[in-house]
């Protein structure tokens, strides 16, 4: 808990009493999730003679999500969501790009070392580092050591690519 997010039931100034658009999106997303649960449950066959079939619990949870969607909607309409600080979208997108690179490199068989090096460099850049070459070198050494330690010492299989086959 950071001090900036005060309990939501404290009285607020008139400015924060306006409708919270993000809150509306959250409520909508919960309602959509509930709908997906019900749709998925309807695809299941219930062949249980006594008690609950596999479709019962998803429906119960969907009902809960529906009620919570309304609860979140009320909070949003009252402007009851905690205050948020300004965020730096560039940093978030950089890390997400790093994760996308990671997934792509693993997916195309590039191996653990290259994939995590890419993630390391983009994350470090997201936190304000500009020394991409130096960071790449550090990351290559570090991920190679991790690969060796876990693949050889602990015999956990990590995905291998061209670099790993050289080791």
């Amino acid at each position, binding site marked *: 808990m950071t*001090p900036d*997010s005060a*309990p939501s039931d404290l009285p607020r100034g008139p400015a924060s009493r306006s409708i919270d658009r993000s809150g509306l999106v*959250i409520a909508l997303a*919960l309602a959509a999730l509930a709908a*997906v*649960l019900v749709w*998925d449950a309807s695809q*299941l*066959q219930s062949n249980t003679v*006594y*008690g*609950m079939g*596999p479709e019962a*619990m*998803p429906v119960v*949870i969907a009902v*809960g*999500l529906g009620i*919570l969607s309304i*609860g*979140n909607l009320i*909070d949003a309409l009252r402007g009851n969501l*905690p205050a*948020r*600080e*300004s*965020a*730096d*979208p560039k940093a*978030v997108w950089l*890390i*997400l790009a790093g*994760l996308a690179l*990671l*997934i792509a490199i*693993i997916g195309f068989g590039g191996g*653990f070392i290259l994939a*995590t090096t890419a*993630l*390391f460099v983009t*994350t*470090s*850049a*997201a*936190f*304000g*580092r500009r020394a991409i070459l130096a*960071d790449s070198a550090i*990351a290559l050494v*570090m*991920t190679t050591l*991790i690969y060796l330690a*876990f693949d050889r010492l*602990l*015999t*956990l*299989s*990590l*995905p291998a690519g061209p670099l790993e086959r050289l080791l």
Partner: protein
Amino acid sequence: MDSFAALAHGMAIAVQPMNLLYALIGVFLGTAVGVLPGIGPALTVALLLPVTYKLDPGGSLIMFAGIYYGGMYGGSTTAILINTPGESASMATALEGNKMAKAGRGGPALATSAIGSFVAGTIATLGLAFLAPWLVDVAVRFGPEDYFALMCLAFVTVSATFGDSPVRGLTSLFIGLTLGLIGIDKLTGQARLAFGIPELLDGVEVTTLAVGLFAVGEALYVASRRHHAEEKLEPVRGSLWMTKEDWKRSWKPWLRGTLFGFPIGALPAGGAEIPTFLSYSTEKRLAKHPEEFGKGAIEGVAGPEAANNASAAGTLVPLLTLGLPTSATAAMMLAGFQQYGLNPGPLLFAERPDLVWGLIASLFIANAMLLILNLPLVGLWVKLLAIPQPWLYAGILVFATMGTLAAKPSVVELSMLAGFGVMGFLMRRFDFPIAPVVIGLILGPIAESQLRRALAISLGDPMTLLQSSISAALLGVALIALLAPFVLKGLGRFKANED
């Protein structure tokens, strides 16, 4: 008493050289990872789970005991030296401890927290050893409907009763329950919410969820608000040792903190937050110099730290005897058991007493190791704290990826990790609690199977839930715990006391 015999047997297992080594590695790794800013004990356990994959269950659980206590200790070091509590239970420690460090009394703050953790951990582990067999006797009488009711109670208390907003807490819980549905239904073999993706048939890995929410989510969140004030690392100046005066002011808070921490931790209510804040406000009230509070009062570190550790041992009571995790860290411990197909509960006490009592005995050993290791090694931990933020978070993400790949090397799993990371980021931004998601995922499927078993036995009559007096009472308490925060606004708002 048979607790003594069982504990002695456990000790004999725990002091075998290999097991001592596992405990030492666990304590060391746990502290090293736990000390990193932004990494709480739950994430410490999740990140280090892959290290134990290839060990036998006994050794792995012993290492876990070390990681658990080491992670707790590391978290309080961070709270004192850079005022970044990795979890809300360390907030009280950060409040006073960081002020002490700023005033050049970082050494005594670390010492009172280490010794207090040892005292509290030892007493609470003894409490665990004596309470557990008794609770196991009670638990064997539980039918499936009673277990289901108990889980309902845990769901409500971890999400609704003590949080800032019951609506947001329950929302988190239900997201976790939804994730728990994914995969093959064990009773009928039908796939739920798998959308034709074969990797989803096994369900969502708890470690992937926890690492995504805690590690990736935290990295995204911290990166997004990097331009806000950065926390400064306080150097440890002067003596590490506590003066006679410090001892005199610390020992009572340690014991009182333990008294708050253990019982509250042992209740299926979860969270070390409440006992730490209760301890903090009690010490403030009882202190001879209450005006020192907020400026670095040693009682304000000693009490809450003891309460935090005692409640960590307390949460092991429902975890080991009932299989009921009541904190995110306990949920990760349960995942550690499940990777060997072990289910904590009365049966495990009967079938594998060596494992359970070896684990409990190792908690004592881990605790003692921490006391001996940590004060001399404090210089090393301070160096770890000084890792520049870009490398720290980049490294955390590399380790998070490694853990996920070691468990399940697939693109789907990595995509889930990234997706949970985005979810964790949004939840932090909109102030949704994270622990209920993890608990919902791990406990949801267990609760469902208990309910279905109960209904199958009763031939589909739902009244079976009310006919058992245990189940009826537990459901009643759960209902009260659910409605209380709506009825009594202000209940459980301990956080408001902080300033």
